């Protein structure tokens, strides 16, 4: 018997609200499959499973808010049956509960087990009104979704949206506050910055884009992402997590991209294996990620496993950004605006497009000397954009 527990989708997440199961008992699930949608304070996240098996029991109902680590479902491994399965403490407790219930004169159905409670009338009415019943909160006994809930949801869906948005914003603000406070409390940051000439990179990008239809054009952001990922190969101490008093380097560069949300707040979901992907693929993935981040449909793995974060204040931004590390990561790389500046090259003063790269890094893991070499490496990589 495998227990599927609510994963932590970031340092700022203590609990999550199950919005929807994507699986039912009896379904076979495979690694990477999206099995549930969980509302964190930041977004509705598609949660993936990393085990294989057959769903035995769903232990949490839609609408429930549960702490990270709470068992949500049990799976039968290959060859297991409900009878021969090694029972987890939860399932072992179930028969006791039913004995207790039978002895009571008014047995209450055990809450939190089995299918979500939706009254037949509510289900029927939801169909008639075109309301997605899974999104309706239940106010009835044991959280049952009743007719009144459906009708209220149908009537109030428009009216409630702004309120929900405000709540989400407040929640997100709290989450960011918690993570950033923890970062500044626990992580001894050091900061470095380096101006990087971008003439080659901008020229190369302009030429690359000139031959492309608009929808296939690349942004400087992906060039920078790829450069960071490649630099990390030489400086693994910038890539990974500081946990339990020790640094755990990450094998691959899953680069978290700080994405500001239009209504306020930000998320930093990962693009996986950035070092191994072409710029075209990174562009496609970045566009998709930004779109989904703003639509609030991120996947759990994107939120859970960035190994470093890149923030790009971009063309509208400022010259230099010094970031706050997102724990338990150990570094954050920043890119400012590309600005034409006086620049001495080969003894002659000229004008050069410059981007200021910055590094905020965890001094428990790395030192300024290594950090400086990392930024130097990044600078050199950006001089050879054709190799990215």
């Amino acid at each position, binding site marked *: 018997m495998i227990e599927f527990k609510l994963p932590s989708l970031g340092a700022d997440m203590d609990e999550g609200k199950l919005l929807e199961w994507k699986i039912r008992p009896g379904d076979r699930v495979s690694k990477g499959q999206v099995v549930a949608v969980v509302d964190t304070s930041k977004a509705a996240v598609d949660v993936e499973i990393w085990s294989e098996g057959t769903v035995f029991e769903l232990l949490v109902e839609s609408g429930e808010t549960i702490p990270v680590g709470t068992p949500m479902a049990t799976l039968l491994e290959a060859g297991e049956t409900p009878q021969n399965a090694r029972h987890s403490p939860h399932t072992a407790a179930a028969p006791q509960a039913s004995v207790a219930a039978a002895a009571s*004169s008014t047995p209450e159905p055990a809450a939190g087990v089995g299918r979500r409670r939706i*009254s*037949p*009338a*509510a*289900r*029927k009415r939801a169909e008639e009104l075109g309301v997605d019943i899974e999104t309706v909160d239940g*106010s*009835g*006994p044991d959280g*049952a979704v*009743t*007719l*009144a809930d459906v009708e209220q949801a149908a009537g109030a869906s428009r009216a409630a949206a702004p309120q929900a948005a405000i709540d989400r914003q407040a929640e997100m603000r709290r989450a960011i506050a918690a993570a950033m406070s923890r970062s500044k409390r626990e992580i001894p940051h050091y900061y470095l910055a380096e101006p990087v000439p971008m003439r080659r990179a901008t020229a190369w990008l302009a030429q690359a884009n000139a031959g492309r239809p608009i929808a296939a054009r690349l942004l400087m952001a992906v060039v920078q992402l790829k450069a960071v990922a490649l630099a990390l190969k030489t400086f693994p101490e910038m890539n990974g997590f500081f946990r339990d008093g020790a640094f755990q380097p990450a094998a691959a560069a899953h680069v978290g991209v700080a994405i500001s949300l239009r209504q306020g707040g930000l998320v930093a979901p990962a693009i996986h294996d950035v070092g191994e992907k072409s710029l075209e693929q990174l562009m496609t993935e970045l566009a998709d990620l930004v779109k989904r981040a703003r639509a609030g449909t991120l996947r759990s793995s994107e939120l859970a496993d960035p190994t470093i974060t890149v923030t790009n204040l971009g063309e509208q931004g400022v010259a230099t950004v010094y970031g706050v590390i997102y724990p338990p990561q150990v570094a954050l790389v920043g890119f400012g605006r590309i600005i034409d500046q006086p620049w001495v090259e080969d003894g002659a003063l000229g004008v050069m497009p410059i981007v200021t790269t910055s590094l905020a890094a965890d001094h428990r893991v790395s030192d300024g000397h290594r950090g400086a070499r990392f930024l130097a490496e990044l600078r050199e990589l950006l001089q050879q954009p054709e190799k990215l």
Partner: protein
Amino acid sequence: MKMTYREAVRQAMHEALVADPRVFLMGEDVGKYGGSYACSLGFLEEFGPERIRDTPLSELGFVGAGIGAALGGLRPIVEVMTVNFSLLALDQIVNTAATLRHMSGGQFSVPLVVRMATGAGRQLAAQHSHSLENWYAHIPGIKVLAPATVADARGMLAPALADPDPVIIFEHAQLYNLEGEPAEDGHCDIATAALHREGADVSLVTYGGSLPKTLAAAGQLAAEGIAAEVIDLRVLRPLDMATIFHSVRKTHKAVVVDEGWKSGSLAAEVLARLAEECFYELDAPPARVCSAEVPIPYARHLEEAALPQPARIVAAVRRMLGK
């Protein structure tokens, strides 16, 4: 004209005895004593011993004699003192009265009326407190009535006597002192359930001695802002489910109040039919308020605790509504 339930039963029998010479009353203590519940007081003097017949303490014997009289063309009203003693006459009622039309290929009918008191609440202990209406309501071939109001006590006897098949009438012993108004012409049907109180939030379905308790509960719920609809089944066999479905389609919630024990009860039957026919209208699991599954206790406080009471009905509704 206001009268007691007891007086209504008496007037109904009096009317029948006057109206039809084939009608006669038979049972333990119905003559000289005037009936265990005084429903035939003065009848012996008025109609004479041939039509008001005291019987030996043998339910098997005198119910059988009633069946014979009915087969022979008379219209007997057989009073069995209480449902508790009717168990001795089960063979006559279930095996004979209920089956003869069928067994004779329609050649014989048994136009018999059996009246009996039923129910608990009077500290008569476990052997004299049964609510076994559902036992009879289980049997095809008989009609089962549960007058819960003065109007029904007054009105149900005439159509029961006019019915060509056996009719069992259950008079809850707690109701005899109830006061109320009979219908103007004294008559009523014996086919439909009755809506006693309208409400949009929950349907309370009940019968017999539980009706006043259910109405009391509905009043209390109204004070809390919960509008309960109250339906009196009146006829326990055949059940008028149409009236119940109509109500539940409006309220989407049902609580059945039944003095019988929950297991295998009439309440169970009503819930089963709601599940079968009305499933998609239900907005909450239907609920039952029944007697505790114990022999009915003698001690007053224990007896009260064992029976459905307004407070338990109110609590069941609150639970259902999540309040």
